[in-house]
């Protein structure tokens, strides 16, 4: 049986993790590779690295970081942040990333999805969709959730699948940072309307939230950052809990 995936997300600034916590056995909490190795050893199914600075000057730093991650990590990983062109994607995949994720750039220029899928295959294109409730409707927001665009979330999800996306990373900005659980509503809705895997994101605060999103929606994976980062939830314990709650996970 195909397993539901648990995906820690690491925010990267200038090649370093943002707000690193000193876990036991971690030599350098600011080193993304050290943290990634720790997560992988605890049973993370995949990793996502988001470069939150993503300036031209930092590109070189990101590429060498991706090369180091690829050399040391034995699970798949996705890289995102500031990707605007086919050329950016080529550099990251060549450095060893398995997938890339694009967000605002895809909203601005949807053909970019088709271009990347055509050149490198759909399997490496994760389209990130940030969504929020505005006037009682789930719509797409860009620029880190600040700017709504005239696009219904469901319509955009269906469109990105048609354009060649291999996976959707769906973040509810309404839930992000609240630690009150994932949005079951929009996650279920998007998962039902597309035939590609959907990663639920935004709102994870405790183990039960993962059970709820897997139990109530057909999402393929759930992503979280701070609860793993600050050691509030241990990935191994989370997966054992989900297993006991009858969720198909890899132990």
């Amino acid at each position, binding site marked *: *049986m*195909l*397993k539901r*995936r648990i995906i820690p997300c690491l925010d990267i600034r200038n090649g370093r993790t943002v707000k690193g916590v000193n876990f036991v056995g971690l030599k350098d909490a600011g080193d993304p590779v050290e943290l990634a190795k720790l997560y*992988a050893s605890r049973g993370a*199914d995949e990793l996502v690295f988001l470069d939150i600075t993503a300036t031209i000057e930092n590109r070189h730093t990101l590429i060498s970081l991706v090369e180091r991650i*690829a*050399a*040391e990590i*034995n*699970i*798949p990983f996705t890289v995102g942040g500031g990707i605007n062109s086919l050329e950016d994607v080529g550099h990251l*995949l*060549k*450095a*060893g990333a*398995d997938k890339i994720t694009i967000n605002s750039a895809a909203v601005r220029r949807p053909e970019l999805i088709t271009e990347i899928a055509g050149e*490198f*295959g*759909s*399997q*490496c294109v994760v389209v990130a969709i940030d969504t929020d409730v505005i006037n009682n409707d789930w719509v797409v927001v860009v620029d880190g959730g600040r700017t709504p665009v005239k696009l219904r979330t469901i319509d955009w999800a269906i469109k990105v699948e048609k354009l060649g996306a*291999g*996976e959707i990373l769906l973040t509810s900005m309404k839930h992000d940072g609240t630690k009150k659980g994932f949005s079951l509503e929009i996650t279920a809705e998007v998962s039902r309307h597309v*035939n*590609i*895997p959907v990663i639920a994101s935004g709102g994870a605060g405790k183990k039960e939230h993962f059970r709820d999103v897997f139990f109530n929606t057909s999402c*393929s*994976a759930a992503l979280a950052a701070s609860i793993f980062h600050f050691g509030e939830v241990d990935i191994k314990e989370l997966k054992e809990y989900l297993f006991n709650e009858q969720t198909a996970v*890899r132990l």
Partner: protein
Amino acid sequence: MIAIIKYNAGNIRSVQNAITRLGYESVITDDREEMLNAEKVILPGVGEAGSAMKYLREKELDKLIVSLTQPVLGICLGLQLMCRYSEEGDTQCMKIFDTDVRLFPRVDKVPHMGWNNFFSLKGELFKGVSARDNVYYVHSYYPEISSCTTAVCDYILPFSAGMKKDNFYATQFHPEKSALVGEQILKNFLEL
């Protein structure tokens, strides 16, 4: 020396990284001599069957691969190119394995992406690996079950997760991305 065949497919570097982690030396190459003289040869790959096969034909690498006598491992697209025919791009492949590659019917999410287990494990490649273990898959086309099948995975329908014929081995999943279980399988191949 392990030769990793260089062609127009992605994910080649990941395979080399995994081999390096296991302490083996490898070279990414499309040089005939280097391939013929290698102890083991790996045909990796993520990509599209039609264009990959066209590239191998143009470089006459297809004939070379079929003629190899040392252990050869095909991974993912590499496995599919070693089959008879693929529905992807209506492609005639290398015909090492007597089976065809078909598109998954869309009754569940496609691609089949993520961790899945396998069963009916046979042969040296799966030494120390059990049906409880999970490996990482990413594919929209699947190889049918045949007499070459050495591992079965069930997603939408049962398909070959592993295959073997003579000196040719293949996995539909990515051992290089499958954590410790994948490392064990690669190690088994490298120790053949």
